[in-house]
């Protein structure tokens, strides 16, 4: 496997704050890898994604992209917690948002929108308004928008956190299918440990103040996985135990 993004000693500080949210984060993401970040609120999970997306400059450290840049794609794209669809755009035009800055012909643009919508199971929804969709469908559009720019790394910020349990499970399985079909790397933030160990190859636990990577877990269960599988359950229990230890220590959680 080849590394696509490397983080070395990354720290982030909010404007006006004197202490960083997190510091000394080292992280290498391999091509095709599914990496999860967990940790309680305030540990800077979302902030880490924003730094990687280039929305926030790190206060220390270096990010190295080992991805070939091309004018017709973005190396990294992001899926947000609430789908963040633009209500004044139809579904297809929402998916087009990322393509608008790229060098892509009209035909290819339409093709990529259609492909992305098909991939998330919304092939016939391009002409709908965002408000005509359910919460799960909106988030599928958010994923299609992220995929349409053909990124190597998809950053996902608690994308299923606002959905009901059944929709969440079905979207988790959809995401695994999409991940397998496209071979994208995914960096996925969640506070749901069961979701983390069901989806991820690797789970990072953030904790402390400022937060650091407290521990990394490898989930070696074969895919397709069972939510009740032995390895999935074992790692899940371990993460939960470590989280509650962190909580007892008052480590910034």
């Amino acid at each position: 496997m080849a590394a696509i993004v490397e983080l070395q000693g990354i720290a982030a500080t909010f404007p006006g704050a004197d202490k960083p949210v997190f510091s000394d984060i080292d992280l290498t993401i391999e091509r095709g890898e599914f990496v999860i970040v967990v940790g309680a609120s305030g540990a800077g999970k979302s902030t880490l994604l924003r730094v990687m997306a280039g929305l926030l400059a790190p206060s220390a450290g270096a990010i190295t992209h080992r991805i070939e840049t091309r004018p017709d794609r973005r190396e990294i794209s992001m899926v947000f917690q609430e789908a963040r669809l633009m209500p004044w755009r139809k579904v297809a035009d929402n998916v087009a948002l990322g393509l608008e800055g790229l060098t892509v012909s009209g035909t290819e643009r339409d093709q990529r929108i259609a492909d992305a919508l098909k991939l998330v199971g919304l092939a016939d929804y391009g002409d709908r308004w965002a408000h005509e969709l359910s919460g799960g469908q909106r988030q599928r559009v958010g994923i299609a928008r992220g995929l349409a720019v053909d990124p190597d790394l998809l950053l996902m910020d608690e994308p299923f956190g606002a959905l009901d349990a059944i929709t969440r499970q079905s979207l988790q399985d959809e995401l695994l299918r999409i991940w397998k079909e496209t071979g994208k790397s995914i960096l996925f933030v969640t506070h749901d440990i069961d979701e983390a160990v069901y989806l991820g190859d690797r789970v990072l636990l953030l904790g402390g103040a400022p937060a650091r990577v407290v521990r990394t877990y490898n989930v070696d269960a074969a895919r397709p996985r069972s939510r009740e599988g032995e390895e999935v359950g074992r790692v899940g229990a371990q993460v939960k135990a470590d989280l509650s230890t962190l909580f007892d220590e008052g480590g910034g959680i």
Partner: protein
Amino acid sequence: MSRRTLLGAGGLFAFLAIWELVARSGFIEATLLPAPSRLPATLVSEVSLGFWHQMVLASLNHYLIGLVSGSLLGVLAGAAVALFPNLDAVQSWLARMLRPIPPLAWIPFAIIWFGISETAAAFIIGIGVFWINYFTAYTAVRAVDPDLVELAASFGHRSLGARLRKVILPAAAPGILSGMRAGLGQGWMTVVAAELFGITGIGQRMNEAAGLLATEVVIVYMLTIALLYGVSDMLFVKAQNRVLRWQR
């Protein structure tokens, strides 16, 4: 016809009927309250004398110049102030000071600066329209969801121009358009007053007629303004609904 339309027409008819009855009862002098049945003949005479369309066109001219320039400058200034915190700070006391001045209080300056001219009338109309648009555009731009701005930035739309095109203008459009619509009404309210000091238009004709106690002429022009406002508002709402067809 829907029940609502019928009731609306009924209300209007009842109003005219009561007005007619009161006017014919003889309790009130005809000059003080002309009967509505006299109005069609008055309108015909105003039209055949050539006054009506001359006055309407002149007023429309002042109105449109004032409305378009007031709306445009108001939206631009309000949006700019909302986008740049330093400009916002500069305007905070200035706007508080200038805004409460009624457009009509500017009449002396309008005459000194522009003379008794069409520009003077357009200027007075424009001032009222400007402030309405200034504050609604300011509020609308400030209220744009920062999450959507961040979303656009994450997909590479980071320059001011890109932010404006992709997020801020479409997101603020409902607010900006409702401000423009309010300005549309405000403009008609100022038209008459802006013409009172001798600039050709509906206001001037009304003033003349009032001086001669030709109150039925005054009423014909009052209704003309109501009609013009109704038509312009209806056209605007049509356009507005087109632009905002994405709204539920």
